[in-house]
């Protein structure tokens, strides 16, 4: 079966499609997170080096991965939007940013919660932590630039450029801080030498990551529906000819 993808690139056509997908992603997310929590909190044995504090890994690492993954996806949509001049792509960038920023914030907070008992400090200037902090600033920059520009088209394109520039920045920051830390050897904490994980722990972590991913999809799709409603209300409803269609789309 050949699916006509271009049909769904119009916000009007995408709206009901997204509405149909949200419950599926939401259900899968709830189930996977439940199993992941069961494994991570109840089944997995303790880590003999770090004690029970290591269990924070089951929210920390998935949140950190999602924060970076969502930024790259957001920049990808921005590139598509800038290249093809597609409205829906920019709506996707707008919908992804808040969820990405939330996961970045969560990665930082849970990282501090993990750092205090294991390294004795809430915060260390390690490459990963610093890049994550800068990532949060970049999310904030992309979102604030959008809200400060009144003209919708310009807001879309300007924040898209901003997101794309940031994608180049994050790896550079990661390596520069790593370099900087080797220079200041005394203060640095080695976190790269992670102990080999037991299979059950890895399973729990991957399940949680998959659950967070599905959660992000559900949340982003429902946000994109809000964005479509807010932006296109007039064209949107006038294009639907019958009351039945209006009811269906809702």
């Amino acid at each position, binding site marked *: 079966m050949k699916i006509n993808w271009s049909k769904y690139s119009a916000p009007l056509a995408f709206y009901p499609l997204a509405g149909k997908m949200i419950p599926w992603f939401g259900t899968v997310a709830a189930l996977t997170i439940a199993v992941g929590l069961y494994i991570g909190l109840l089944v997995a044995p303790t880590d003999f080096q770090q004690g029970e504090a290591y269990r*924070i890994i089951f*929210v920390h690492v998935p949140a950190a991965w999602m924060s970076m993954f969502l930024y790259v996806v957001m920049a990808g949509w921005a590139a598509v939007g800038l290249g093809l001049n597609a409205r829906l792509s920019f709506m996707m960038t707008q919908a992804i940013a808040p969820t990405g920023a939330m996961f970045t914030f969560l990665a930082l907070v*849970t990282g501090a919660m993990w750092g205090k008992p294991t390294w004795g400090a809430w915060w260390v200037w390690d490459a990963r932590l610093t890049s994550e902090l800068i990532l949060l600033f970049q999310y904030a920059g992309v979102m604030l630039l959008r809200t400060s520009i009144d003209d919708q088209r310009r807001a879309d394109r300007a924040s898209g450029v901003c997101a794309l520039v940031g994608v180049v920045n994050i790896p550079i920051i990661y390596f520069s801080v790593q370099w900087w830390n080797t220079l200041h050897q005394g203060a640095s904490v080695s976190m790269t030498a992670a102990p080999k994980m037991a299979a059950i722990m890895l399973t729990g972590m991957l399940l949680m990551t998959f659950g967070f991913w599905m959660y992000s999809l559900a*949340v982003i799709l429902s*946000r994109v529906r809000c964005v479509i409603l807010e932006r296109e209300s007039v064209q949107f*409803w006038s294009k639907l000819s019958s009351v039945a269609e209006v009811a269906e789309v809702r």
Partner: protein
Amino acid sequence: MVYWKSVSEFLAMGGYGLYVWTSFIITALSMVWEILALWRRRVAALAESRGITRSLE
């Protein structure tokens, strides 16, 4: 199969309970808050568009 011997041991998390539970609770609250905020945003957007549909009829 379950690793813990008692509920209190589970809650104490080997002395790290405060850190572990704060992390999990903050994550859960953020997600719930995000879903609630989205739900309210949707209600507001629908109310507005309902006004527009009515004016079109």
